[in-house]
């Protein structure tokens, strides 16, 4: 197998590279290497617009001189450049300060067994076939409705990559992974006002992608539904985050309980371990070893083995998300979260989106958010939004040019339900989330 040979070759490169820092006086080191190749095509108005061939590589090295740390990276993998990259990292480490918490993970935390997580399924897709697929995707969007007036096109992308990571404690592992996607974005026009929306499908196996036609139709449906949007008067009301935007609520939570935010005191959830953040029915857990899933990994960015963590049970925070460094700063132990979570899942209720609309009765369904607008230190939240006004459980009309605001701590406490309409397209898998009340500002 060609890929396996390449992985072995790159593992040897990392193995040899890790000898170099010692020669230069370092006490410990880790190194990672990645190679990615890909094809990306975009078709617009029935014809190909761009074909891009991707091929990139990168090397990153971190060295420790006792408790002093330095890093360097390069896109040049020649032996000469590798040596220079190590030298650059060593030179920087000499000027860093002694930091009692710096260093590699405890050896017993490193992953010893790396299961095959079924992450690599290359798509032998010729540029011509990718173009045809993109054209058919866009065509199904443009034919969906006479109000579809223009297009930003449809794209088909396929990537394959190899990652190898090792450290001077003897950890060394490489794996291949793939990622494919189809996306489409079209415009609609009514009464001189234009709207745009999009849809995409992404998977490690191309057979798991939604069909090109379906992606196109969903993009068109979403655009058509937005036509005729108006603002709202300012008010307080329930807000239902649709699944594709609800993950933002969860990612703000994850960032607030991550070690870096906690030891820097830049989190609105300081000292909350063991306390109730959410209502009883909320459970957040991680499934890092799901075969073929987008967020799966056997080890984190430091080589620490990943675990099936229960992060929130019955609304109570069980675990922070810690790397080796942030754990030491907090007097705790790494949880294998250097680089973030892996397939973060939420326990859902039995209601789909339609049933959640009924449960909400009258309120706002949000399908798009704009801007950052989250203060990580206080949890104050204010973002631009668009979506639909809902009354008696039925969508009434599209709305835009409004903001929704609150404080994340209150918003988490006042989640009323989580839908079973899970969006599997990312590393955070959540359904729609209904919040009891937020402030809406509008015209």
């Amino acid at each position, binding site marked *: 197998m060609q890929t396996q040979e390449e992985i072995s070759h790159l593992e040897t490169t990392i193995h040899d590279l890790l000898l170099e820092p010692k020669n230069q006086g370092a006490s410990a080191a880790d190194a990672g290497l990645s190679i990615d190749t890909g094809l990306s095509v975009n078709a617009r108005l029935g014809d190909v617009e761009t074909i891009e061939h991707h091929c990139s590589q990168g090397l990153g090295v971190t060295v420790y001189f006792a408790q002093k740390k330095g890093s360097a990276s390069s896109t040049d993998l020649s032996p000469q450049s590798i040596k220079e990259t190590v030298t650059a990292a060593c030179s920087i480490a000499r000027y860093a300060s002694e930091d009692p918490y710096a260093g590699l993970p405890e050896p017993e935390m490193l992953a010893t067994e790396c299961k095959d997580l079924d992450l690599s399924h290359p798509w032998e897709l010729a540029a011509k076939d990718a173009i045809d697929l993109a054209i058919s995707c866009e065509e199904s969007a443009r034919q969906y409705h006479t109000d579809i007036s223009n297009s930003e096109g449809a794209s088909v992308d396929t990537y394959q990559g190899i990652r190898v990571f090792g450290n001077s404690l003897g950890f060394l592992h490489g794996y291949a992974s793939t990622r494919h996607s189809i996306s489409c974005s079209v415009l609609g026009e009514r009464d001189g006002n234009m709207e745009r929306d999009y849809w995409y499908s992404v998977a490690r196996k191309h057979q798991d992608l939604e069909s090109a036609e379906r992606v196109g139709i969903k993009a068109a449906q979403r655009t058509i539904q937005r036509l005729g949007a108006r603002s709202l008067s300012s008010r307080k009301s329930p807000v239902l985050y649709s699944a594709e935007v609800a993950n933002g609520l969860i990612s703000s939570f994850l960032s607030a309980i991550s070690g870096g935010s906690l030891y820097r005191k830049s989190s609105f959830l300081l000292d909350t371990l063991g306390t109730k953040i959410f209502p009883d029915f909320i459970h957040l857990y991680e499934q890092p070893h799901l075969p073929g899933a987008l967020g799966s990994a056997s080890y984190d960015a430091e080589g620490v083995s990943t675990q099936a963590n229960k992060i929130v049970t019955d609304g109570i925070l069980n675990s922070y998300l810690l790397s080796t460094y942030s754990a030491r700063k907090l007097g705790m132990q790494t949880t294998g979260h250097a680089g973030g979570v892996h397939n973060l899942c939420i326990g859902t209720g039995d209601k789909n989106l339609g049933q959640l609309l009924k449960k909400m009765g009258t309120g706002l369904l949000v399908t798009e958010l*704009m801007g950052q607008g989250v203060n990580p230190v206080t949890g104050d939240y204010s973002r631009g939004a668009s979506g639909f006004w809902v009354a008696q459980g039925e969508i009434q009309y599209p709305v835009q040019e409004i903001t929704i605001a609150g404080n994340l701590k209150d918003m988490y406490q006042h989640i009323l339900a989580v839908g079973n309409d899970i969006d599997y397209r990312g590393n955070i898998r959540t359904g729609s989330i209904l919040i009891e009340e937020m402030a809406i500002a509008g015209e």
Partner: protein
Amino acid sequence: MSNSALQLAKQAILVPTGLQESSIHRVMDQLFNGAVDSGDIYFQSSHYESWVLEDGIIKEGSHNIEQGAGVRALSGEKTGFAYSDKIDLSELLSAVKNVQAIARQGQTAKVALPAHTHVPQLYAPINPLSSLSDQQKVDFLRKIDSETRKLDARIEQVIISLVGVQDHILIANPGDSLAGDVRPLVRMNVSVIVEDKGRREQGSMGGGAREDYHYFLEQDRALGYGQEAVRQALINLDAVPAPAGSMTVVLGSGWPGILLHEAIGHGLEGDFNRKGTSAFSGRVGERVASALCTVVDDGTLQGRRGSLSIDDEGTTTQCTTLIENGVLKGYMQDKLNARLMGVQSTGNGRRESYAHTPMPRMTNTYMLPGESDPEEILQSVKNGLYAKNFSGGQVDITSGKFVFSASEAYLIENGKITRPVKGATLIGNGPEVLTRVSMVGNDLALDSGVGTCGKEGQSVPVGVGQPTLKIDALTVGGTNV
């Protein structure tokens, strides 16, 4: 073109890789062997370093090298693109083969461009990374840390970052000699967390320029960032909930010019207008702002973060008038979109790196000063919001809806600034918002050199600026309904 910049770029890119100029010509000939309208090769060698101080110690530093070449073929509206991290002849020839696939139905129309005459150099071809020794860099960060911590007893955390970049660029265009540029860029940031009676807040301030690290030592700039970060954080400790709804908003001068970047700038980029997907498409000559408003995109400001002597397609940058006395004048163009719209490039063709394709992007976007005294503007407002500082923003160029988030704001009551309010997002409609500008200050200021703009996954450094502005109605996204 400054010869020295071109010579230095050749030295940095061609000498280490052993690539001959004659080989580049051979690759270009090969590229135009196919039926393509145009095309280019973009060579880049970039050195980047960063230093971070946290908890009073130099926590980490990194040094990064990126280099490679991107080959582009253009045929009608079509683009073929390939790149490689290796700069050598065989890689370039294989990239050419890949990109020519785009041109099957195209026609050869080799355009001879005017040769580069004198291009004003907007920054020296210096290496910021070597402008201070590593020891001087860490001593400097420690000094700013200890002086910032002395400012107030309520400071809990100080994080300081220092970043330097040196970019060498070579661009091969058909029928023209190589263009080259050496681009220095430095950036520094101080962020603090303060705590008082159990309430915590953050503040952050930074700056940057196409200069070397001495920029931060001059005029006590670095210490100024620390003072400003602490001031903002302390003010926010006392902030009350922000109001919700439509009201009169006065925007401060300088960085609040992000309004123009989001509400106007993106919608005036040539690609969206060629495709007809922008809320501003087809509106040149129409009134889109009050007569008080004149807005430009100016890539030619000396040493600014958003400035470029030549853009990433080798075109000399310029000052482009976007809106003049309220009337829409024109769009920002790269070569592809200019050709398809039958106009000239405005020198706005930019790309994040050799691994990305160029597109029309902003440089430094700002509004020219008006005649009102800023104090008089505030006094004219009975009830409203004064937004002095912002974090980021975003726009939907098709519907025209844009947001930007205030990080420091105050209530205006009876013409006076009263209480600070919590950060809130402001939302509006790009083609409408400037029609509601009723006063423009005489205090034009540019931002301190911190802007980064994202478009289709590509980030580039930009600048913004404006005088104090009064907008008669804008929706403020507070919690106080």
